C-alpha cells in the first residue's frame, strides 16, 4: 500500500510512521476512555447509594428532617416484626417458582434448539409474554383469575366444578401460587431464549462425535450441553434467586399486597414511601442483600460440587484448542513483524523484531 501511495523515498525514515506513539499508551488511553463512563455510572447509581443506605440503616430518619442515631435497632426490628418475617417466608414460594422456571426452561430450550415442527411458533409463544408491560401483566392476571372468569372457565371446560375451585387471589392457601404462576408466565420465555442462545453456540461437530461414540440424547445433554452452558446457567439461577427475593410487580399490581401476599419489596416500598421510615427500609434492604449474597455463595458451592465431574472432556479439549490457537497467534505475530522488515523495497530495522525471530 505505502509503496503505491507515497512517492519513492531515497532515505528510509528513522522511525516507522504508524509506530510513533507506543501502543501501550494508546492502550491505556482506550481502556480509560471506554470504561470511565459505564463504571462511573455504576458507582454513582449503585455503589454510592449502597454506601449511603448502609449509613441510613443506623438512623431513625425520614426524607426530610434530622436523622437520629439508633444503632442496630433497625436491624433488630427487621427480625422481630411479624410483617417482615412473613414476607421473608413468602419469598420461598418465589424461589420454588424460579427453580421450576430454570428447569422447565432448560428442557424447553434443549427441545427447541433442535429440529421441531413449528419451532418458531413455540419459541415466539413462549417468549412473547416477556415483552408485556408489568402493569399490563398485572391487569391481565387480575382479570384472568377473577372468580368465574378466564381461568375458572377453562378449568370448567376440563370438567372442574366452579364450586370446588378456590378464589385464586383471595384464598390464602393458594393466592401466592397464583402470583408465582404469573411470574413464571412472564419470565419463562426469556430464560428459554437465553438458554437457546447458549446451546446454539455449541460446536455442532461435538454432537456428531458423540453420536459416533454411541452417546444417546440424554448423555449428550449431560456431557455436552450442560457443561457448555454452565456460565449462563449459573448466571440465570443467580438472577432468579435475586428475583425471587425481590418479587415485586405481580403482587403490587394484582393484589396490592393484600391477603398475605405482601412480598418483601412490596412491604419495603410501603415502609419507605408511605410510612417514610427510611432507616428501617434501608436496614431491610441490607438484610435482603445479605441473604442474596448467602444464597449466591451456597449456590456457587453446590454448582462446583455438581459440575465437578461433568466438564472432563469438553473442558480439556477447549483448553487444548485455546492453547494451540494462542501459539499460532504468537507465530503469526512474529511473522507479521518480520514481514514488515521490508518497506519501499528497502530493509528497515524494527526494534525488537529481530530478537523475537531469533528466539
Amino acid at each position, binding site marked *: 500500500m505505502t509503496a503505491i501511495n507515497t512517492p519513492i523515498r531515497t532515505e528510509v525514515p528513522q522511525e516507522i510512521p504508524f509506530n510513533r506513539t507506543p501502543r501501550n499508551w494508546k492502550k491505556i488511553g*482506550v481502556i480509560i476512555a471506554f470504561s470511565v463512563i459505564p463504571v462511573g455510572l455504576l458507582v454513582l447509581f449503585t455503589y454510592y447509594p*449502597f454506601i449511603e443506605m448502609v449509613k441510613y440503616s443506623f438512623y431513625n430518619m425520614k426524607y426530610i428532617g434530622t436523622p437520629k442515631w439508633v444503632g442496630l435497632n433497625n436491624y433488630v426490628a427487621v427480625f422481630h416484626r411479624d410483617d417482615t418475617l412473613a414476607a421473608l417466608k413468602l419469598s420461598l414460594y418465589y424461589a420454588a417458582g424460579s427453580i421450576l422456571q430454570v428447569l422447565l426452561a432448560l428442557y424447553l430450550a434443549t*427441545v427447541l434448539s433442535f429440529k*421441531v415442527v413449528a419451532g418458531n411458533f413455540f419459541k415466539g409463544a413462549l417468549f412473547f409474554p416477556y415483552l408485556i408491560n408489568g402493569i*399490563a401483566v398485572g*391487569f391481565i392476571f387480575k382479570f384472568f383469575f377473577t372468580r368465574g372468569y378466564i381461568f375458572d372457565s377453562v378449568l370448567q371446560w376440563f370438567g372442574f366444578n366452579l364450586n370446588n375451585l378456590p378464589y385464586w387471589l383471595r384464598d390464602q392457601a393458594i393466592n401466592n401460587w397464583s402470583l408465582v404462576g404469573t411470574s413464571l408466565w412472564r419470565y419463562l420465555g426469556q430464560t428459554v431464549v437465553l438458554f437457546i442462545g447458549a446451546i446454539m453456540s455449541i460446536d455442532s461437530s461435538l454432537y456428531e462425535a458423540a453420536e459416533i461414540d454411541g452417546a444417546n440424547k440424554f448423555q449428550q445433554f449431560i456431557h455436552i450441553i450442560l457443561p457448555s452452558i454452565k456460565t449462563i446457567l449459573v448466571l440465570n439461577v443467580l438472577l432468579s434467586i435475586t428475583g425471587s427475593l425481590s418479587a*415485586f410487580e405481580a403482587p403490587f399490581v394484582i393484589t396490592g399486597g393484600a391477603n398475605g401476599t405482601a412480598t418483601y*419489596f412490596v412491604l*419495603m416500598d410501603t415502609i419507605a414511601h408511605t410510612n417514610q421510615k427510611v432507616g428501617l427500609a434501608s436496614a*431491610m434492604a441490607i438484610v435482603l442483600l445479605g441473604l442474596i449474597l448467602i444464597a449466591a455463595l451456597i449456590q456457587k458451592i453446590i454448582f462446583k460440587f455438581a459440575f465437578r465431574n461433568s466438564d472432563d472432556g469438553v473442558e480439556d479439549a477447549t483448553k487444548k484448542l485455546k492453547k494451540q490457537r494462542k501459539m499460532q497467534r504468537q507465530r503469526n505475530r512474529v511473522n507479521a513483524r518480520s514481514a514488515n522488515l521490508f518497506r519501499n523495497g528497502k530493509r528497515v530495522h524494527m526494534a525488537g523484531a529481530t530478537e523475537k525471530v531469533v528466539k
Partner: protein
Amino acid sequence: MKALYSVKLFLIKFFKYFILIFFAFWMLLPVVSCLITAAKPDKEYQSTSIMQMPKNWFNFDNYIHAFKVSNMGVGFRNSFIVLVSVLILTTLIGTQLAYVLSRFRFPGNAVIRGMFTLAALLPGIAMQVAIYNLMGNMHLINTLYGYIFMMMGTDVISIYIFIQYFENIPVSLDESAIVDGASYWTIYSKILLPLLKPAIVTALILKGVGVYNEYYAANLYLQNKQTLGTIAISLYSFTGPMGSKYNMITAGVIITLLPALVLFLLFQKQIYNGIAAGAVKE
C-alpha cells in the same frame, strides 16, 4: 427390539409436542382472552359469558376510549423519548466496556467485571430509597433527562452478552488490523461493532423491553403525570374507579403491548439467532 425402540422414540416425541402445545396454550390464553373482551361493548360485556366470542371483532370503541381516558398520547411520546435515548447511550457505553474487558488485560479488568456481577445481585428497587435522595440532591426529580440518566446505569445481562460475543470473535482479526496500522477506535468501530450487530439487536430488545415496561422508578421520579408520564403510568391509571370495567382495561392492555409485539415480529429472527456462534469462524 427395533419395534420397541421406535415405540420409545414415538413416546418421547409425543411427550415433547404435548409439553410444547400445553405451554403455548397457557402462554397465549390470557392475551387472547383480553382480545375477546376488548371487542365487546359495555352491554355485551355484561350480558355474555366471559369466554364467549364477541359479535363484532372489529369494534374499536373501547380502544379509542381507553386511549383518551388514560392520556396515552403523552405516555407514548415520553416512552419513545426515553427509550431511544437510553438505548443509544447504553449500547454505546456497553459495547465499549465489553470491548475493553474482553480485549485487554489490565489490573482493573477483574475488578470491573466483579463490580458488575455484584451489581446484578444488588436489588434494584431496594436501592431506590437512597437513589431517591441522590436524585433529589442533583435536582433530577421531575425531569425526563434525569430519569433517562438514571436508567442508563448499564445492566449486567447486556454486558455479559457483549463479552460472550466478543470472545467468540477471533482475536486474530484485531491483530491483523493492528498490523495494517488500524487504531483501537477503528478496530472497535469499523471491525468489531459491525460483527457485533446480532448481539446488539438482542441486547437492545432485552434492554428496550425493560425500559418500556419500567413502572416503579417512573412513578417515583416523574411525579408530574399529566406531562411526564410514560406508557406504564398511563396504564396504571386504570386502577381505582375504573377497576372493574375490564372491557376497557383489556383494550388499554392490548394498546400498550402492540408496539412491543410489532417490534418482536419484525426482529424475531435476530433475537433468536443473535446469540448464536460468532460471525467469523477460524
